[in-house]
């Protein structure tokens, strides 16, 4: 059966500042959403997106966030909720800490991002631990049973068809993952432990502190009070703290929370550590506010095959703070390669330069020697123009700049250097989005720049019209060079060549000299005089007591009558007349 997917608009931003701006307690607008999906009943009306913003203007920040279908596994007599996201060939089971509610967590942009990153390379199976959120509860009278939790993970894996999986245990979930690995080594491929510990009493809180926490929890559960303990950096964010309170309430009642706390307090899996054979990655934030980093170090010492990575930050929940750093390290550990996070494309000016031959055969040094000198010079020249140049092969340079004028100036400097070394280079410039972290650089925009470079005449610097239009005001001038066809683009691209000299007047001066100021009206001459002094239209309007609109019309008429392309050209004409 095909199950529906609940689509919602959700604020999301990759920056902390954006996050705090965009964060709005969804409870106030979207209402309390009860867990409703299960594996047997399709979710009704799954297609219409629901906005959870109070301010419609924030919608533009948003992107659609999906909530995966919740399914239930049967573990002994308890139902354990889980969600499967993504479809990588590797199974990754995420066992979270407390509080947790698999459906509410999706509302947090950081959580969504972590899930997105992990599910890009794995089939991510999100487990709701027993006693939390959507799963069956714990018996408050029964003593905590860590084995039952291990069986819960196995039951979820069975239901989801996992043979061997990597487990990501966060906070209390780390101990469960360790116990699972010790119990079912044949089903454990690897472990990633985030903010984990082997013994609660040892690493988190002694009996006295625990009693104080339990007492405080009894009174304040559901108000978001645990946020100050788990992620103090976010406690001042009122909207987030309110949402956190909602997460607490929807993850457990006060009694259930106390039972969870007691279960966590009883955690001591130190005895199981020698039986863990799978490779383990231990991630611990160096200033973890809840579980000291020393707990991670102890784990690393006690485990056979463990690698410890300390990440900056003090958030205890793995899905808060810099989740990209977590995903980067975890992905590299689990797959052997680090992927570049999506959305890292930036707008850049791209320069492709190709050494196409030699121009000065009379030079004594051999070509290779001259090429070596050129290679040495390229990086420096690019850096001087604020760019980042990389050699793509022996004869080709790809360079990135923050602006098209910088790329063009760099191209001029490269041409001069190449000339002095007796080398001929052809260069093309385009602007477009590119992922700067990618090695080697690649993408459609770069292909366009390369295509243009390939079509240049010797020593010429060609730009797409688009790139040339971005440099207005830079003093650079261009000549039309028609258009070229680029594979994959529907229309041919208009290209221009960088003019050899820089000047502020138009290149065709003849007409300007012929122009007669006598064709202008007295008012127009007055306006032109002020234009020549460098005044803007609003300034001229004030000076002459006219509306800006009228000034614009005057300027347009002046240019028309004098057959001038720009006001700068008209100003130049006045200046020359004055000099004559």
């Amino acid at each position, binding site marked *: 059966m095909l199950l529906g997917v609940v689509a919602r608009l959700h604020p999301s931003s990759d920056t902390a500042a954006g996050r705090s701006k965009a964060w709005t307690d969804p409870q106030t607008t979207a209402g309390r959403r009860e867990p409703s999906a299960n594996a047997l009943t399709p979710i009704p009306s799954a297609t219409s997106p629901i906005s959870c913003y109070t301010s419609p203007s924030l919608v533009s920040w948003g992107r659609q966030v999906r909530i995966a279908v919740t399914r239930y596994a049967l573990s002994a007599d308890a139902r354990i909720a889980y969600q499967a996201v993504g479809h990588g060939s590797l199974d990754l089971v995420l066992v979270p800490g407390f509080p947790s509610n698999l459906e509410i967590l999706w509302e947090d942009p950081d959580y969504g991002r972590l899930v997105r990153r992990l599910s890009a390379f794995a089939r991510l199976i999100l487990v709701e631990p027993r006693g939390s959120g959507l799963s069956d509860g714990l018996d408050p009278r029964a003593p905590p049973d860590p084995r039952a939790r291990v069986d819960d993970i196995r039951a979820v894996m069975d239901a*989801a068809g996992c043979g061997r999986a990597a487990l990501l245990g966060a906070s209390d979930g780390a101990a469960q993952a360790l116990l699972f690995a010790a119990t079912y080594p044949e089903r454990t491929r690897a472990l990633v432990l985030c903010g984990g510990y082997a013994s609660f009493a040892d690493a988190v809180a002694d009996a006295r502190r625990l009693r104080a926490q339990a007492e405080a929890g009894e009174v304040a559960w559901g108000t978001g009070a645990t946020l100050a303990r788990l992620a103090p950096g976010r406690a001042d964010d009122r909207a987030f703290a309110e949402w956190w309170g909602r997460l607490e309430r929807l993850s457990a009642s006060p009694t259930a929370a106390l039972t969870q706390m007691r279960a966590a307090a009883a955690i001591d899996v130190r005895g199981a550590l020698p039986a863990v054979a799978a490779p383990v990655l231990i991630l611990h934030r160096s200033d973890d506010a809840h579980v000291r980093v020393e707990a991670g170090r102890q784990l690393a010492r006690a485990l056979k095959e463990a690698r410890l990575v300390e990440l900056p930050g003090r958030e205890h929940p793995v899905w808060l703070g810099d989740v990209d750093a977590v995903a980067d390290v975890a992905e590299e550990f689990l797959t052997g390669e680090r992927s570049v996070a999506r959305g890292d494309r930036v707008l850049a000016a791209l320069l492709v330069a190709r050494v196409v031959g030699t121009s000065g055969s009379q030079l004594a040094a051999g070509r290779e020697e001259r090429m070596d000198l050129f290679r040495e010079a390229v990086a420096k020249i690019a850096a001087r123009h604020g760019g980042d140049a990389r050699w793509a092969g022996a004869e080709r340079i790809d360079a990135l700049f923050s602006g098209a004028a910088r790329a063009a100036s760099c191209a001029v400097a490269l041409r001069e250097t190449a000339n002095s070394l007796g080398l001929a280079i052809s260069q093309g410039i385009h602007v477009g989005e590119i992922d700067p972290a990618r090695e080697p650089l690649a993408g459609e925009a770069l292909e366009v720049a390369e295509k243009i470079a390939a079509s240049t005449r010797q020593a010429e610097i060609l730009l797409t019209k688009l790139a040339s239009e971005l440099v207005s005001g830079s003093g650079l001038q261009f000549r039309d060079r028609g258009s070229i066809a680029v594979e994959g683009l529907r229309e041919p691209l208009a290209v221009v060549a960088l003019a050899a000299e820089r000047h502020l007047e138009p290149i065709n001066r003849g007409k300007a000299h012929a122009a007669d100021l006598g064709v202008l009206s007295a008012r127009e001459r007055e306006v032109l005089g002020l234009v020549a002094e460098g005044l803007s239209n609003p300034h001229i309007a004030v000076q002459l007591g006219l509306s800006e609109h009228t000034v614009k019309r005057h300027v347009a008429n002046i240019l028309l009558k004098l057959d001038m392309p720009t006001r700068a050209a008209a100003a130049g004409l006045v200046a020359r007349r004055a000099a004559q």
Partner: protein
Amino acid sequence: MLTKTNKVTGAGIKRAIEARDGRALASFYADNAVTRIVDRNNPPSKPREIKGRGAISTFWDDICGRTMTHKVDVTLADGDQMAFTQACTYPDGAKVFCIALLKLEDGLIVDQTVVQAWDE
């Protein structure tokens, strides 16, 4: 590294996938084969690429390690090209559907593109 290779046939692929036989599947690939996967998490401009028979073999071992049912329904062959569809179901009922296009050289897969969608 596996050294044994077997020429690909539609029936061979069907048998190996439906029997979750990762080793047999890996034997259909040339040493330098590339498998490209396009799905909701790996868009066409950035497909997930699995390069080389060793990595592809691990990939199939992972897939075959899942207790799910696979059904290969349509297999088409045209010279050095082949295509098949694969419908899979997890024990919890979640379904996956894939279409794979293969390019062959000397009877072995050198290039494979998989487009897949699943219940989530």
